[in-house]
């Protein structure tokens, strides 16, 4: 007597499985999205004006102090930013995700507010606050202590000032990654530790922090890379301070007379640093398993802070002064008074700036374009990142490693360089996209992909394949398992990713500034142009408008019925 076991080759019930061609399609799209601009970068970096291969650009890059200095400045700034962000954001993430600190939702919302703030807008606000002479903080300081005009409390036009401002608007990356990861860590591991007699601190050190390590490292990495490729804040603060970062230098190289070859070469060191860091991350995390969500998990438990509640909250609020309270107070004052400086009195209040900002013919158009692009980029980007991270995490198709690398690679390419690369790639048939919103959409997708991918990948690493496997054994295709099992489990991660991209697109400046034209302007380029002429009042109005839009949309995304509570 023999048992009729199904033969392995036959597998579960057959259905038409569109997964593979669809996955292949996504993979190909990703290749096109990333490789095409990279190809043009390489061409420009390694050829001369006549198209002959050359290393002259690199020779210039590594011998000209005008180019070497910015390289070192950039590395200093991004290292400092990475460290500061980690020190500030990881504890905050833990407090919000795993303790009973009061006002957790408020703190989270305020971190989102700093994330929503475009770095260049934050830089403008900090100029209003901390310019050495006219800055509000310095004026108050001199008035309080009756000091002379030469005494300065803070000077934002310095390297330290720039690091500070960059960290203000980069730390949310670390915070969100850490907080989300901590929320996914099941209570049973910590319970086990507690039952075995470990005090709270030891549990945190031995269980919680190691489990959150992938997210912390990913956060620091993203912070470092964001700071390295950032253009907005340096564009506003570095020039008055009298130095260049690599991105502002690259921007200069594109001004007349343009030196695209040199600019492309200048972005190669950034690419190399990124690859090294990504490899290091893989090496550190490589051999350990971090699966924290299985089919049999317990609910996370909050740690009682007791007497530490108030200091914890104070710490969070103090941190949030820098990216949110002070800058937005300065912007609000600027938006509703004649001049950003001087004392705030009733008679100085005015709606002139608001009127001027909305009377400006470009504003309405930019609002419409920005909103459209943000929604499209967020939706397409989330789907793309979901599929790519699924393929990479589950090793579903051949070449999944390359996919993961491709999805992360754009993080090393400064937006400005990508802007030019896209410009070169899409100004010729068959894809003439310059002058349309499509080229901006492609730029946003490419730029947002790395953080979206990192985020969803971290989420995937936390979900054990056993649930999907169960679903597939019961006859579901890969696509169905992804849609019905994995995606719902990733729900909070998906919404977060969507919001990430929406916000990231809203605050993107560097590629947009290369790719926009009269009919395809966006809010960030309008603000940048306003800043160039020193129109602070209108910048403040538009900046606050941006914040309101983003908050409404993000709030909505988190409350939509379809995306709401988990279906059982």
């Amino acid at each position, binding site marked *: 007597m023999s048992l009729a076991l199904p033969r392995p080759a036959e597998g579960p019930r057959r259905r038409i499985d569109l997964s593979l061609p669809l996955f292949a399609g996504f993979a190909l799209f990703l290749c096109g999205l990333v490789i095409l601009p990279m190809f043009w970068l390489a061409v420009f970096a390694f050829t001369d004006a006549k*198209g002959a291969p050359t290393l002259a650009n690199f020779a210039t890059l590594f011998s000209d102090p005008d180019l070497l200095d910015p390289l070192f400045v950039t590395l200093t700034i991004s290292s400092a930013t990475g460290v500061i962000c980690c020190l500030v954001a990881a504890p905050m993430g833990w407090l919000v995700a795993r303790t009973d600190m009061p006002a957790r939702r408020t703190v989270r919302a305020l971190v989102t507010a700093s994330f929503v703030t475009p770095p260049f807008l934050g830089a403008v606000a900090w100029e209003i606050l901390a310019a050495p002479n006219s800055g509000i903080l310095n004026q108050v300081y001199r008035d309080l202590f009756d000091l002379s005009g030469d005494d300065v409390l803070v000077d934002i036009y310095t390297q330290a000032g720039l690091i500070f401002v960059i960290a203000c608007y980069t730390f949310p990356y670390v915070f969100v990654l850490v907080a989300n990861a901590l929320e996914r860590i099941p209570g049973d591991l910590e319970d086990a530790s507690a039952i075995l007699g470990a005090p709270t601190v030891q549990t945190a050190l031995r269980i919680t922090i190691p489990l959150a390590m992938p997210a912390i490292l990913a956060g620091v990495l993203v912070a470092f890379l964001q700071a390295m490729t950032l253009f907005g804040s340096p564009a506003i603060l570095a020039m008055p301070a*009298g130095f260049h970062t690599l991105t502002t230098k690259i921007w200069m190289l594109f001004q007349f007379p343009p030196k695209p070859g040199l600019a492309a070469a200048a972005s190669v060191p950034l690419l190399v640093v990124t690859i090294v860091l990504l490899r290091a991350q893989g090496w550190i995390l490589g051999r350990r398993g971090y699966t924290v969500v299985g089919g049999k998990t317990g609910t996370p438990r909050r740690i009682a802070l007791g007497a530490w509640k108030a200091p914890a909250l104070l710490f969070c609020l103090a941190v949030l002064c820098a990216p949110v309270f002070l800058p937005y107070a300065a912007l609000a004052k600027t938006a509703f008074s004649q001049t950003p400086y001087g004392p705030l009195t009733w008679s100085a209040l005015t709606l002139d700036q608001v009127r001027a900002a909305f009377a400006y013919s470009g504003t309405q158009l930019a609002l419409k374009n920005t909103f459209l692009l943000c929604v499209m980029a967020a939706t397409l980007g989330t789907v793309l990142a979901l599929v790519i991270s699924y393929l990479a995490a589950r090793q579903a198709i051949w070449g999944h490693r390359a996919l993961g690398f491709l999805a992360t690679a754009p993080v090393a390419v400064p937006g400005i360089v990508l802007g030019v690369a896209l410009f070169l790639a899409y100004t010729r048939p068959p894809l003439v996209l310059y002058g349309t919103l499509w080229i901006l959409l492609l730029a946003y997708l490419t730029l947002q992909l790395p953080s979206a991918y990192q985020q969803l990948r971290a989420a995937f690493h936390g979900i054990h394949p056993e649930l999907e496997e169960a679903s597939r054994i019961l006859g579901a295709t890969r696509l169905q398992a992804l849609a019905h099992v994995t995606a719902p489990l990733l729900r909070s991660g998906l919404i977060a990713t969507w919001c990430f991209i929406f916000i990231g697109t809203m605050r993107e400046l560097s590629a947009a500034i290369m790719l926009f034209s009269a009919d395809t302007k966006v809010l960030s380029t309008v603000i940048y142009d306003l800043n*160039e002429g*020193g129109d602070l009042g209108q910048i403040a109005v538009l900046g606050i408008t941006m914040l309101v839009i983003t908050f409404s949309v993000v709030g909505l995304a988190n409350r939509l019925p379809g995306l709401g509570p988990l279906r059982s």
Partner: protein
Amino acid sequence: MLEYTVRRLAFAGLALLAAAVPGHAEPPAPSAVTPALIDAATKEAKVVWYTSTELRAAERVAKAFEAKYPGITVQVERSGAERNFQRIAQEFGSGLKVADVIDSSDASHFIVWKRQGWLAPYLPEDVAKLWPADQRDPDGMFATWRSTFCPMGYNTKLVKPEDAPKSFADLLDPKWSGKIVKAHPGYSGTILTATFEIVRDIGWPFFEKLAKQRVMQTQSATDPPKKLAAGERAVMSDGSEYVLLTLKDEGNPVEPIYPSEGTPFITGPSGISALAPHPNAARLYQSFLFSLEAQQLIVDAGAMRSLHPQVKERQDRKPLKDIKAMKDDPQAVETQVEAIKKKYTQYFHT
């Protein structure tokens, strides 16, 4: 060769590789504003104006046009002249039809654009009749619609009039170290032109020494007067006169200084794009810019200088003829752009 072709395609305008000179045997006949033109322009309903005029001044001109010709809206695209220059090259290189009327505070741009064939000939009646010959193109491609100075200036709350610097040379006094703001020739057409004129008349050593004065560097020429008004710096070594005077009108503690060596004179021509998507509205707008009405507006409300002989200068302003002007020379600027920017970066490190 592929790379070469692409480079050419993408940066054709900037690299000036395709030096096609469109031949116009004779200048176009002067054009008056006719009802037919107004009708055609109204049908197009829109005109896109690329300008480097300070935003509020530009908006005033645009609003005046919209009030005079209801049904046509002006879309103002304001940015620094050098930025616009780069953007226009990018857009023309790709055959993008977006700009209608273009102005620049760097007159040498028009030499380039004309050579590229990117301008459409159009000669407003007022220009033909009233404009000095050296301030309009013989082929009717452009004419100077606005001009201004690039003076020095100071904050009257921070500096007493008798202590204020009187000349460029005065700025090199150590007492001004850390107190000076200036704009950048890499972004601002006004500053590029001014830098050229100062270098020509008093030489590079001035800038070499100025760079050691811990100068605060901004991008647009419209920004130093604003930094001055805010009290962020006490003295500006360059910046747009019309922005400074407008700020003064509004009660800000700022005062221009016309240096004893001479004050750089900045001309801002205007022309029509050969690819204008709204060609009739563009002609109407170009005519409007040179009309007595608009010219008086930029003098009264915009604090600029006009070449229209019937325009009345304001009593409270130092008249054009009393200011020792450094002569503008777009032809020469055009040949030296790269050298000026390179040398400047070498001294100022930005």
